[in-house]
């Protein structure tokens, strides 16, 4: 058992930012290395260098004891390095088998041999105890099954090093277990894994040692068995953080219904939705992916048009049939998919922060007043501590947590009374999560009613004041987060119909 990969003094500079500076990484054969760090710490950049997507500006890479220069993604793959991306990279209109064997299809007489391909896919799946039909279209699969396909696809090239970038962010607990089983099997075959995740419990369960990055610098590597989550968090954020969840010292400000949804229905999307939020209250919505939790809030926000039902704000009936009318009633919706639904990636930080309320930056001639815009953007960057070289930076270059802060800034501009957050901390590290929870509490103090969707049990239990469990497109029960347990919630979820 020896070192299979060594990265030494890796440096990468982007215009205006040093993304990596003197970063080391050491991977041993048949081990799982966790790569940990806040947003913008440089994890993704480092992995992109390893997988050939970026070229380093300095440093050396040794693979199997030899110095290598990774030219591009194909070269990395030929060297036995495979990466599973956080964002799915499958073609939705192709079958599972076609995706797995993309560009390396088995052929017969020069034509693609579908039979052989499906057979081999099936064998691969059986090996990992996955039950997905090879001939199904990828778009027909659930997100979590797509993630499984993605993982198998990465394995099909028989790599010696596998990079997993937050592989469980779309998986349920059961599927996560399945993934861990696969990881253990891979370990027994002397395959090495670099595992990026923000979930402490996972890191302690599956990894052998942990390397920590902070602000593009290498902080250190520790043995997973000999460390604690406190130590890791401290290494990550560089300061003591006694708690992952900030304290909220009130349940709600006034016992009245700020927003009330009555008998909301939309065929195939949600049924019999009844819920309310008080001023200053954080209402949690827990459900697995595909349970209909997102559709429910999309219904409230007017993205999905209801078939029947009523919404009341401050006790009087309001009509919401599209996002425009929702915003008029000062409802804000932070979507789960920030890149495709929240941000205009090709626009700047300042343009993104002002996009929900352009009227605010117009002067008396109805023209955009750049001074106003700059002022607003600067305020948000400062208050939310958004890490960006400038407010003119296009948001695609920011890290996930900073992008999420830009989305929040955008909605703060409409001065929301109701803030709906769909998985607000997905793919975001502990430090940024803490800041986002604090922002939520600050808003609650001002009387905003908050609805938060989450599929992370510890989060929903610690952050929400009241908790609704969603299953099969309906709300099945209400729980008190202070009194219930993860086990109790899961028992509702897994309860047979």
């Amino acid at each position, binding site marked *: 058992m020896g070192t299979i990969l060594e990265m030494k003094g890796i440096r990468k500079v982007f215009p205006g930012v040093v993304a990596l500076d003197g970063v080391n990484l050491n991977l041993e054969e048949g081990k799982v290395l966790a790569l940990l760090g806040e947003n913008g710490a440089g994890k993704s950049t480092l992995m992109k260098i390893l997988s050939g*997507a970026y070229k380093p500006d300095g440093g050396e890479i040794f693979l199997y004891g030899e110095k290598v220069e990774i030219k591009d993604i194909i070269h990395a793959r030929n060297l036995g390095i495979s990466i599973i991306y956080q964002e799915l990279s499958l073609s939705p209109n192709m079958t599972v088998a076609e995706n797995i064997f993309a560009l390396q299809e088995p052929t017969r007489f020069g034509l693609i041999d579908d039979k052989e391909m499906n057979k081999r896919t099936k064998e691969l799946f059986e090996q990992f105890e996955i039950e997905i039909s090879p001939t199904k279209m990828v778009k027909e699969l659930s997100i979590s099954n797509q993630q499984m396909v993605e993982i198998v696809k990465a394995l099909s090239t028989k790599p010696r090093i596998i990079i997993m970038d937050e592989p469980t962010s779309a998986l349920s607990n059961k599927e996560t277990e399945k993934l861990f089983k696969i990881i253990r099997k891979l370990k027994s075959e002397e395959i090495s894994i670099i595992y990026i995740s923000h979930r402490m419990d996972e890191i302690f369960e599956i990894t052998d040692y942990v390397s920590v990055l902070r602000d593009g610098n290498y902080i250190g590597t520790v043995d997973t068995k000999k460390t604690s989550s406190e130590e890791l968090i401290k290494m990550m954020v560089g300061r003591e953080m006694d708690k992952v969840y900030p304290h909220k010292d009130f349940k709600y400000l006034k016992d009245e219904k700020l927003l009330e949804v009555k008998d909301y229905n939309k065929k195939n999307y949600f049924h019999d939705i009844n819920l309310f939020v008080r001023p200053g209250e954080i209402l949690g919505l827990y459900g697995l992916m595909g349970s209909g939790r997102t559709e429910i809030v999309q219904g409230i*926000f007017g*993205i999905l048009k209801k078939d029947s039902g009523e919404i009341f704000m401050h006790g009087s009936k309001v009509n919401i049939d*599209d*996002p*425009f009318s*929702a*915003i*008029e009633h000062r409802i804000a*919706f932070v*979507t789960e998919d920030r890149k*495709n*639904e*929240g*941000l*205009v*990636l*090709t*626009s700047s930080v300042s*343009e993104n922060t002002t*996009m*929900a309320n*352009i*009227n605010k930056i*117009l002067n008396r001639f*109805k*023209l*955009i007043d750049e001074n106003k815009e700059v002022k607003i953007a600067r305020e948000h960057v400062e208050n939310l501590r958004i890490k960006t070289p400038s407010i003119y930076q*296009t948001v*695609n*270059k920011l890290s996930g947590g900073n992008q999420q802060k830009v989305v929040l800034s*955008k909605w703060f501009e409409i001065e929301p009374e109701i803030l709906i957050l769909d998985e607000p901390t997905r793919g975001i590290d502990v430090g940024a999560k803490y800041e986002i929870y604090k922002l939520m509490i600050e808003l609650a103090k001002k009387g905003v009613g908050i609805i938060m969707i989450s599929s992370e049990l510890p989060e929903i239990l610690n952050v929400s004041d009241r908790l609704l469990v969603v299953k099969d497109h309906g709300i099945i029960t209400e729980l008190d987060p202070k009194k219930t347990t993860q086990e109790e919630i899961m028992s509702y979820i897994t309860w047979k119909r």
Partner: protein
Amino acid sequence: MGLKLFADKKLFKSYGGVLLALLGLMVLFSFLSPHFLKTNNILTVFAQVSIIAILAFGMTFVLMIGEIDLSVGSILALCGIVLGVMLSNGFNVVISIIAVLIAGALAGLFNGFVSAKFKIPTFIVTVATMGIFRGIGYAITDARPIQIENSFILFLGNKKLFNLIPVPVVIVIVLLIISHVLLSKTKFGRQAKMVGGNKVAAEYVGVNTKKLQIKIFIITGIAAAVSGILMASRLYSAQPNAAGGYELDAIASAVLGGTSLSGGYGTVLGTFIGALIMGVINNGMNLIGMPYFYQQIVKGLIIIVAVFIDVRNKESMLGK
């Protein structure tokens, strides 16, 4: 205002490349032809460019939202015919011009409404209307040109103010300023940029993307109508076969000027510089006596280069 914008450092940074290209071409042609740098010729280039430039201003709006309008050349021709028919039937010139602008707006409204309402890709809709509008023009005129004799119309395309500045140049500058303000200084322009960058995100902050698309196609239609008037003036006639292929010149101008074909990025000022580049190349090739078909080849190659630059910019923007 235009001058102040050019002096702006940030703006120079974004247009430095195209300005340099324009300058380079001008140096090249001044060596190849002794006539090129004469004031008269430069003003001719400006005047010739005016028709494409105005079309391209409209095109910039469409490209900005990630759509395309291939029917602008046909709208231009049809609008010229409407002008010719109105004038030859004795209508007052002001009323005729208003009618032409309305005709352009209606053509754009049709493009925008059909594509937005029925969710048909604008590429398909405008390829179809390219034929439809052209066909209507031929049907009205029986494929024959209509002579234009109205002195005001002829003034617009052919005369000079103070015996120096061609009137079309004045019109282009005025429209440049109006479009620039509309695109980069108003809520409407900002929303267009958002829609081009991310349609879903724009919808989720309450932008009515269908309405916006219709408005934008109306703008393109009106721009084509203005170009149609200038064209009719310069040709002293309304020709049903006028402006064939102009849509591609307009797209090339916009893309050369830095407007993205996939939407979300672009400026009218850049488009204007792009149109000047196209105009300088056209004029230069004519001056050195290059045959028409070779000119076609050169223009085709320019379009490929422009799109290549756009693709590469997009890649570097989205991290690569």
